[in-house]
């Protein structure tokens, strides 16, 4: 356990820039942009001579129906989620390239000879790297998203209160901000398992490739997708190529994208119980934030088979890490 802790710490030292600073800087940029747009809005408003003074928010909320209140709540949710989406994209890039380099870079610069001179097993080394990709980096990214989202909300509330509107009450009385935060944190375990096929595939390439792991990681799934599509076009056998691209190529390369299971879920539901209701914004938001709804994906075959494939590929990565002899 102690070894594992230090192995993770070692990864964090090496990748502090991408694990810690990338999400913080992205969040900071979002904050600055928000601030700039607020200032712009204020400047334009004062130039045009419009004054919106003394809006009594309590009076408004009192007159709002449940529906309207819900809409405001969703708007607040979006402002918390928005940084999450951008930081999520950054996280995707970070985790993707981290996995690709994780078992390759030290072979290239031969520092693997130093790591292998320590009494650490190859299994622990590989697992510590997988842990960083699936738990450590996403957790930091989510915390950064939540903090940025809350800061943006506070900024908006401050601006509103400058104009006499009291959004504070809205912030603390509606359950939304906490609900969103809790929902984002609660999907980490789901993310870990969902990301396994991509993490496993990239780390397998990283441990196996003698050079250019990026190219191999891309060429093999994309190439096989093209072959399947071609066979399909030729009508040689009937393998659903859409299914192949989505469930094999897509899962091998893009599962580290946070919330990757959500589109599939809605596609399923659109066809079944919700009908077109699922296209309704409220429903989508409610679904994204609903714990049981998110966790429903666990039961789906693509989730379970993907996880099993990911674990198998990680085992392959451990084997290659042990026996690849080219340094």
């Amino acid at each position, binding site marked *: 356990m*102690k*070894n594992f802790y*230090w*192995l993770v*710490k*070692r990864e964090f*030292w*090496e990748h502090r820039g991408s694990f810690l600073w990338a999400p913080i800087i992205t969040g900071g940029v979002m904050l600055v942009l928000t601030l700039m747009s607020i200032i712009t809005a204020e400047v334009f408003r004062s130039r045009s001579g419009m004054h919106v003074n003394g809006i009594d928010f309590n009076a408004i909320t009192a007159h709002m129906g449940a529906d309207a209140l819900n809409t405001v709540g969703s708007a607040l949710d979006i402002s918390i989620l928005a940084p999450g989406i951008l930081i999520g994209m950054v996280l995707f890039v970070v985790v993707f390239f981290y996995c690709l380099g994780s078992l390759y870079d*030290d072979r290239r*610069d*031969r*520092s*693997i*000879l*130093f*790591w*292998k*001179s*320590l*009494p*650490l*097993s*190859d299994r622990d080394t590989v697992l510590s790297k997988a842990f960083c990709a699936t738990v450590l980096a996403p957790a930091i990214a989510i915390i950064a998203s939540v903090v940025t989202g809350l800061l943006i909300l506070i900024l908006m509330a401050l601006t509103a209160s400058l104009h006499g509107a009291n959004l504070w009450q809205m912030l603390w009385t509606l359950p939304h901000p906490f609900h969103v935060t809790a929902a984002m944190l609660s999907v980490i375990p789901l993310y870990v398992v969902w990301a396994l096929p991509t993490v496993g595939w990239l780390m397998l390439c990283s441990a196996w490739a003698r050079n250019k792991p990026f190219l191999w990681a891309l060429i093999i799934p994309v190439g096989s997708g093209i072959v399947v599509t071609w066979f399909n076009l030729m009508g040689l056998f009937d393998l659903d190529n859409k299914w192949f691209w989505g469930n094999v190529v897509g899962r091998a390369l893009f599962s580290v994208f946070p919330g990757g299971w959500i589109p599939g879920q809605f596609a399923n539901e659109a066809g079944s119980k919700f009908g077109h209701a699922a296209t309704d914004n409220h429903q989508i938001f409610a679904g994204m934030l609903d714990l049981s709804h998110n966790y429903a994906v666990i039961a789906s075959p693509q989730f379970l088979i993907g996880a099993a494939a990911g674990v198998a590929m990680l085992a392959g990565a451990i084997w290659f890490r*042990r*026996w690849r*002899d080219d340094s």
Partner: protein
Amino acid sequence: MSAVITASGLSKRYKSSLALDNVSFQIAPGRIVGLIGPNGAGKTTALKAILGLTDFTGELNVLGFDPRKQRDKLMGEVCFIADVAVLPRWIRVHEVVDFVANVHPRFDRKKCEAFLARTKLTPGQRVRQMSKGMIVQLHLALVMAIDAKLLILDEPTLGLDILYRKQFYQNLLEDYFDENKTIIVTTHQVEEVEHILTDLMFIRDGRIVLDADMDAIGERFIEVMVNADKADAARALKPIDERQVFGKSIFLFDGVERAQLEALGETRRPSVSDLFVATMKGTYT
């Protein structure tokens, strides 16, 4: 005491060549063994096999472990420095000391810090900011603070200037080596290690061509400086090497009676590098 390393019938084939060809040897504790051979002779492969970094066929026992199956346990007892530039370039001095201190049960942090205090290294310095000489100082400080039974050095001083090279071996002898430790070293700078070696192993084309301790080598190989008039008599005794210096011939003999040679001229113990050159004749042709 039982042997530190016992190898029998060790073979390793790479795609096109045989890197180790049915090699057998034993290394006893408390020895400093020089493993010396031309480029591509199989030195590094042999060391990798001992360290569990490569697969091979045959039997190999290192400190009671099978390096193929128990590499991580073995590494608790073995240290190695594989040439100079293998410390990760991003790591800082205090980070690497912290890391090794926490994952290596035999690491003595105080000892390491004492070694580091003798160098110009600072805790916040990254490996990428160091010269080659400084990197090897850091690596040596880490390794010397580990109470390991076996230390393996693969070209540890490659590319260092002479000050660092001298200091490296001096530190190793004065502050590290004792009768419970064993050191295996490969190097091309034979002159620098020959006075510290207790045993010599020559390897050529994947085979051990000489495996003896230094005393035995002094008995077996004798160099004689012969005047021109006795040169033919010397040649009759089948020397393994002959060279000319200042009008005299220097002959190297393998296993010829010392008394017989003393009659020909002044005898002395050959240097390891002369012995090496004579043994490896024709390797590259």
